[in-house]
């Protein structure tokens, strides 16, 4: 087990930069989620750590040692691929044993560790199956077992759950977390599903256009995204723009939000309150409710403020008193306001 560090990593494909000066630490034993829209460079970063991508410049360290010149097979990593990449010509057992066999581990030792790994993923009973006879979830577990049986220093997961349907995905998230805790291995995984990232990771990093825009513990990043992109990408955020003035932020409707610096602030949809009468909260706006969407326990309201759509999310009960459409008051507590560092 080891910590991973990348330093000023750059990888360009023609004019496009898949990685642009990325520097990041992945702590030992942590579960690190890499998040970003498609094409943001998250997979490239993962593959650079694995060794499949050779960076143009920059360094990669595993366990403190530079590995740029170490080929994939000597980096002692475990990797789970998006579609699992199980070898079709081998059984479950043989797939799991592969990493040990190529390391010339003894037969007895191999058998023992394969059994342990399969027990860990609860697939001991399917050891002799061919891989095409397995369900999606089972394949995912085989892939996990195969990746960890060699006791790699780092476990790399490339969208490990994206091929599963939703119900199974939630189960597997829990399973993945359990296995990672039991093995205690440094794990880096790539996902475009923010919920998955928040659920699994103890640290996350968000990439955009090859740049690392924000990283840290999920809650910290969620609560203090520091830039509009992060705020909008991780969770949902209503962006409100205005003109900074000495006493606060002046909005286009003339309203002053005292004590805020601007020019842009964000408010999470779940922080917005809707009232038909003017509330007392200092941050309040006059807007127009356009549509109420029923969503079971939770509901969503689409609001128009100064020609710009905003979203509010809350328990359906909270929206009971509202009309289907019409003028409403929006308000939010001061502490729910997200201010961006760039504003400073």
């Amino acid at each position, binding site marked *: 087990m080891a910590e991973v560090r990348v330093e000023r990593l750059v990888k360009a494909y023609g004019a496009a930069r898949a990685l642009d000066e990325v520097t990041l630490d992945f702590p030992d034993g942590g579960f690190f989620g890499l998040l970003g829209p498609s094409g943001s460079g998250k997979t490239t970063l993962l593959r650079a750590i694995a060794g499949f991508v*050779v960076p143009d410049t920059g360094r990669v360290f595993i366990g403190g040692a530079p590995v740029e010149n170490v080929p994939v097979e000597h980096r002692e990593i475990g990797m789970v691929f998006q579609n699992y990449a199980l070898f079709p010509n081998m059984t479950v057992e043989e797939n799991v044993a592969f990493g040990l066999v190529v390391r010339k581990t003894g037969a007895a030792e191999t058998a023992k560790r394969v059994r342990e790994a399969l027990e860990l993923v609860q697939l001991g009973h399917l050891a002799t199956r061919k891989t095409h006879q397995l369900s999606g979830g089972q394949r995912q577990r085989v892939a996990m077992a195969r990746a960890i049986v060699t006791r790699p220093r780092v476990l790399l997961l490339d969208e490990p759950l994206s091929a599963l349907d939703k119900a199974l995905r939630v189960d597997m998230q829990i399973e993945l977390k359990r296995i990672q805790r039991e093995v205690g291995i440094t794990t880096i995984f790539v996902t475009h599903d923010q919920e998955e990232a928040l659920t699994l990771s103890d640290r996350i990093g968000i990439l955009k256009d090859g740049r690392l825009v924000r990283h840290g513990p999920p809650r910290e990043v969620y609560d203090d995204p520091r830039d509009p992109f992060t705020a909008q990408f991780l969770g949902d955020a209503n962006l409100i723009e205005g003109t900074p003035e000495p006493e606060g932020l002046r909005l286009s409707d003339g309203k002053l939000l005292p004590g805020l610096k601007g020019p842009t602030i964000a408010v999470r949809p779940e922080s917005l309150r809707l009232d038909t009468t003017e509330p007392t909260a200092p941050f309040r706006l006059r807007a127009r409710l356009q549509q109420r969407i029923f969503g079971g326990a939770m509901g969503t309201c689409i609001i128009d403020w100064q020609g710009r759509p905003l979203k509010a999310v809350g328990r359906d009960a909270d929206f009971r008193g509202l009309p289907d459409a019409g003028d409403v008051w929006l308000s939010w507590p001061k502490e729910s306001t997200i201010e961006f560092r760039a504003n400073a």
Partner: protein
Amino acid sequence: MAGTIAGQDRRKAFMLLSPAYLWLTVAVFLPLSAMAYFSFLSDVPFGGKDWHFTIANYRAFFETGTYATLMWKSLKLGLIVTAVSVVVGFPCAYVLAKVVKGRAREALFLLVILPFWSNSLVRIFSWAIVLRGNGVLDRAVNAVLPWDVKLNLMFSPTAIVIGLVHSYLPYVILTSYLALQAIDDSLIEAARSLGAKRRTILWRLILPLAAPGIIAGAVLIFVPVVGSFMEPRLLGGRLGTYYGTVIEDQFVAVFNWPLGAALSFILLAVVLAILAAASPMLKRAAT
């Protein structure tokens, strides 16, 4: 530092590729260069003969009409054999790929390509037995028909075409079959659901989609047929003089290798020119 792994990568590709290219260099590219060199000599440069550089061998091609006539004869033979093979072979491939199903298809397909593994010379010679006057074919026809027929197809251009088509037909069936098989049946069903007639489907859908396979097969036939010499000799009788037989003579009997080399190069140029003219279609076939 980034260069090392990329460099290793390139080295590995080089190591995997170089044996094949080295082999082709020794077996094809250097020999062609040697032949180019020879084609400008006045006589073979060994056995103590006098020789000097000359373009007389190329001039010989243009001085009399003989070589040009034979070239045209060989090209015509290539075109006819290719055309007949495609016209005969494509429907056969179509039936195999789209009509016959299941294990029967596998078995029939094997039967069609099995002659590949039998000796082509022997097959040509068998045709000689079949086509010869008073041979198998004449006897069979006479056994069926009440009146006396003397087909005697042997020693005619027809015999050469029959023998060559027999030799090369499996190529076009194989390539067309592979191309046809790659066409999803649902495409044809979609076209039918849109009200297309069979003929329309054939011309607008199946033929364009299968064209790469047909063309690949055509090239595989045309190239060797243009250079053929054994089949015309065995089946053509007195009409069996072709461009290929003249080249063979230069190497095997007359011992005028420089002239043979020059004639070969002219043939090569013509064949490559024809392939280049067909290359827009070939490119599609390659992808």
